[in-house]
């Protein structure tokens, strides 16, 4: 708490005075299911990227390269939208990953 700004230092009105702060703020803490993506199965249709409500599908040079686990809330839309014949993304309870780095 001691590092947070005092009321005199804080911008008024509850504004966040700069852009892009959501990149710094990790908001995946409440995720209960983690999407796991198989690069081998993926056909690069980009449906997961289109539908992800949190911009958490990482794309480079037009191809999906991974998932941003710092911001993914585990809603499962990517797994739902992944074509049924492909199933490159599957959801797994976070409890399976206990002990490993969560986010």
């Amino acid at each position: 708490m001691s590092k947070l700004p005092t009321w005199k230092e804080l911008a008024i009105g509850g504004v966040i005075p700069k852009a892009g702060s959501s990149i710094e703020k990790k908001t995946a803490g409440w995720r209960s299911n983690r999407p796991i993506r198989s690069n081998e199965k993926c056909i690069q249709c980009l449906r997961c990227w289109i539908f992800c409500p949190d911009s958490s599908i990482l794309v480079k040079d037009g191809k999906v390269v991974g998932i941003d686990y710092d911001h993914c809330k585990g809603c499962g839309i990517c797994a739902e939208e992944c074509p049924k014949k492909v199933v490159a993304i599957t959801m797994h309870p976070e409890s399976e990953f206990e002990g490993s780095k969560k986010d």
Partner: protein
Amino acid sequence: MAKYVSLTGNDAAATALRQVRPDVASAYPITPQTELMHKFAEFVANGDVDTEVILVESEHSAMSAAIGASAAGARVFTATSSQGLALMWEMVYIAASCRLPIVMPEVNRALSGPINIHCDHSDSMGCRDAGWIQIFAENSQEAYDSTLQAFRIAERKDVLLPTMICFDGFIISHTNEPVALLQDAQVAAFVGDYKPERALLDVEHPFTVGGLDMPEWYFEHKRQQVEAMRNAFSAIEAVGQEFGKLSGRPYGFLEGYRMDDAECAIIALGSTCGTARVAADEAREQGIKAGVIKLRIFRPFPMRQLRQALGRTKTVGVLDRSISFGIEGGPLFHEVRSHLYGDDRAILPFVYGLGGRDIRVEQIVEVFKTLRDAGKSGLKDRDVEFIGLRE
């Protein structure tokens, strides 16, 4: 020589707003505010002012649109009454906590139910803790003058709080009175250009409005609002004096009448203060040293100024035009008594005029008699007295 015209309170406020030339206005009609927006819309339709008027579908939307436009960097107003204010409640608090200097004439009308369109102060009293500056006008002239001043007060850098100008529905809003108007150029120079520190339309400097505050942030933002309200004292004073130099009508936090040697005083808000002054004259003819304090600013509450103005009075009657259930007296009484804690005076609560019931001179003379008798008997406290109620 000032130009006098015959205007209702609504027309006077609309004229002030035309002269201020706000960038954006959001509008939804509600009695008795409706004619204010009619008049302003007429100014817009006639090309007398180039404000962008947003016709919205409810008061909740009216305040939401005002908040959006203000955050975008515009100078904004809206106006409302009673149920309209009640419907915009949620956004009224958000406007204040976002520190957006929105100006809003609030034409006082009783809250339902039973449904009633006439004057009392229950609507604006309900949001006394919303974080808005609240100015009460006694007549059309004050509605005009305070609307002009509200922009300056609200927009001062160390204040940045929304401001409502409260005036009595029908009694002021629909009654023609002579009003001295400033010239358009004088108003333009007085209010100046609005230059917000941050504006969403300034895409070179992006920022976020309305973000989520977790427990480690919210408290500090509330503390900032406390500071802004404290700073509003000097803003109100400075703007009121500057306006006085411009118009010959200086303004402060309150106005005393025959208070120099008064032994008993009445404190009230709005149009009743005129009636109370006549009553004070009559009471003095009957040997009562009577005085009146018209409270102009309710938020921030001018405790220091009020204590000073009360001078040597022994008994104080507080006239509330709204009611608080489950506690004796109305909000004005509670605030006055709270700020005079430890004081030796008798401070007695009166409630009058709910739902637009008239209050007459002779009724206020009776209040002065009650105060005189309390001074003699040493009565310090009693239950609320209802003026003009059929018992």
